[in-house]
């Protein structure tokens, strides 16, 4: 076997090459069975969830109760949403607000993020990149409760392994790094991976001075309140004190209801759980994103390309957090095969594109 690192963007030419003769994508949960089988061509994505059949479900549920049908279905809907194959419901409204299409209220905008927004990666894929680019004054409000919930998801993994102290209140980068060293490519749970990603993204927003963490004594005093209620009420209070226009962003009914009770504007983003059998109009970029998202979530996937198998591994091998941040992926493939030929081209294309990106004229020509 041969191996090479590629950048996330290089999945585009890679998929472009391998889809010439169509290919099968088997997504494997580490140590488990095939969960999903996707036939791809460049015009449409045909999604067949084989293992939702009764037989496979029984087989899976006897092994791991996490992957029961509903969860599996939601996970797939989530992946489709994250890759841009299917947008979440409500995203258009949010983007309008971020891009100031609604000019009825000119106060500074403050987004109160529920934990599930950060955990379902909608934030990463649809909101976070926009926030980084948005020029208006924008405040992302993170309550102590949200931060604690993110931390607890990492901690639960750490506790299971028992290699890190149990009492990490607020996880900072060194802790994440140590945590990742424990697992390497072996993949922490989906929740733990997402927690690590969320912490990283919030760190970037903090650098841009867009993040406001709410630490108020009143919060601990009222901590008997139900968590979702606490999240919304603490953000509301801060927004009122600073005359911010508050928008609560969530993915669940409960927080949405809490926001309504507290008379806050709220927006609920949810994946399209009842995804269609055939999704039309999927682009090459969407397919590449889908493969990237699935790889990052599961840590490891396999593509069958004709008689050969390509293994794509989320590149974080416990050595450097930087690799993971850059979106690097590790490829393993047979020597001297068709895949080896494709990947050599992809690596060459990547070096050319990197050189082109450096040159202003290329930017101008776009």
């Amino acid at each position, binding site marked *: 076997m041969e191996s090479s690192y590629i950048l996330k963007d290089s999945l*585009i*030419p890679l998929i*472009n*090459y391998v*889809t*010439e003769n169509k290919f099968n994508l088997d997504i494997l949960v580490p140590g488990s069975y095939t969960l999903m089988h996707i036939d791809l061509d*460049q*015009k449409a994505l045909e999604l067949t969830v084989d293992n939702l059949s009764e037989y496979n479900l029984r087989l899976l549920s006897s092994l791991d109760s996490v992957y029961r049908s509903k969860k599996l279905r939601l996970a797939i809907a989530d992946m489709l949403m994250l890759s841009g194959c299917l947008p979440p419901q409500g995203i258009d409204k949010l983007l309008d607000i971020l891009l100031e299409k609604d000019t009825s209220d000119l106060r500074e905008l403050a987004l109160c993020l529920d934990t599930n927004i950060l955990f379902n990666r909608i934030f990463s894929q649809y909101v976070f990149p926009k926030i980084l680019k948005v020029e208006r004054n924008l405040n992302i409000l993170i309550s102590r409760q949200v931060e604690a919930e993110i931390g607890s998801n990492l901690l639960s993994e750490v506790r299971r392994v028992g290699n890190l102290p149990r009492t990490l209140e607020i996880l900072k980068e060194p802790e994440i790094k140590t945590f990742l060293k424990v697992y390497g490519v072996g993949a922490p749970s989906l929740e733990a991976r997402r927690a690590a990603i969320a912490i990283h993204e919030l760190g970037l927003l903090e650098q841009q001075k867009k993040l406001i963490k709410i630490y108020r004594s009143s919060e601990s005093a009222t901590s008997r309140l139900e968590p979702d209620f606490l999240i919304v009420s603490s953000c509301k209070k801060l927004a009122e004190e600073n005359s911010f226009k508050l928008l609560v962003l969530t993915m669940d009914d409960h927080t949405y209801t809490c926001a309504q009770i507290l008379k806050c504007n709220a927006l609920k983003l949810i994946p399209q759980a009842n995804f269609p059998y055939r999704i039309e109009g999927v*682009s*090459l970029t969407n397919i590449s994103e889908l493969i990237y998202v699935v790889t990052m979530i599961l840590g490891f996937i396999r593509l069958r390309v004709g008689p050969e198998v390509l293994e794509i591994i989320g590149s974080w091998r416990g050595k450097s957090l930087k690799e993971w941040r850059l979106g690097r992926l590790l490829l393993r493939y047979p020597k001297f095969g068709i895949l080896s030929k494709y990947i050599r*081209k*992809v690596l*060459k*294309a990547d*070096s*050319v*594109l990197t*050189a*082109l990106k450096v*040159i202003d*004229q*290329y930017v101008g*020509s*776009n």
Partner: protein
Amino acid sequence: MWVLISSLGLKPIVPLNVFWILTEELNLDVKKVILITTPESASSLHWLPKIFNKMRAIKIEAYRVEEDFDSMTNTVRVVINRALSEGFKVVVDVTGGRKIMCIALFNEAIDKADAIVYLMLNEPMYSGTFYPYIPKNITKLIVLRGSLSGG
């Protein structure tokens, strides 16, 4: 051994894409690239050779022509004749550059060049994109005349 003669316009990615297809997809042994350009679109000439050489070590020449059909035709004729006399097989790319320049190129190449090619792109949104990143089903190198076999 082939020489690629290409008209260079305001989108320098075009000759790069054609070169990539010829060398990487069709495995053509291209040893030299000759770019025909107008003063208006010559600004990319100071960095473009570096990018070509990232793909493959080749010789690059550039000729600036005025926006005048006769002058263009004369330059193109000299360039093609010289390439032929040096023993190259000539492939002429008429995708980029001003229309008049492409016509001049086509006009001169029609009887002399071994192949005339045009890179068709069905989606304008990919017009500034490097070839491997363009979905394969929306782009195609069309051989307008001759063939790309041999050499």
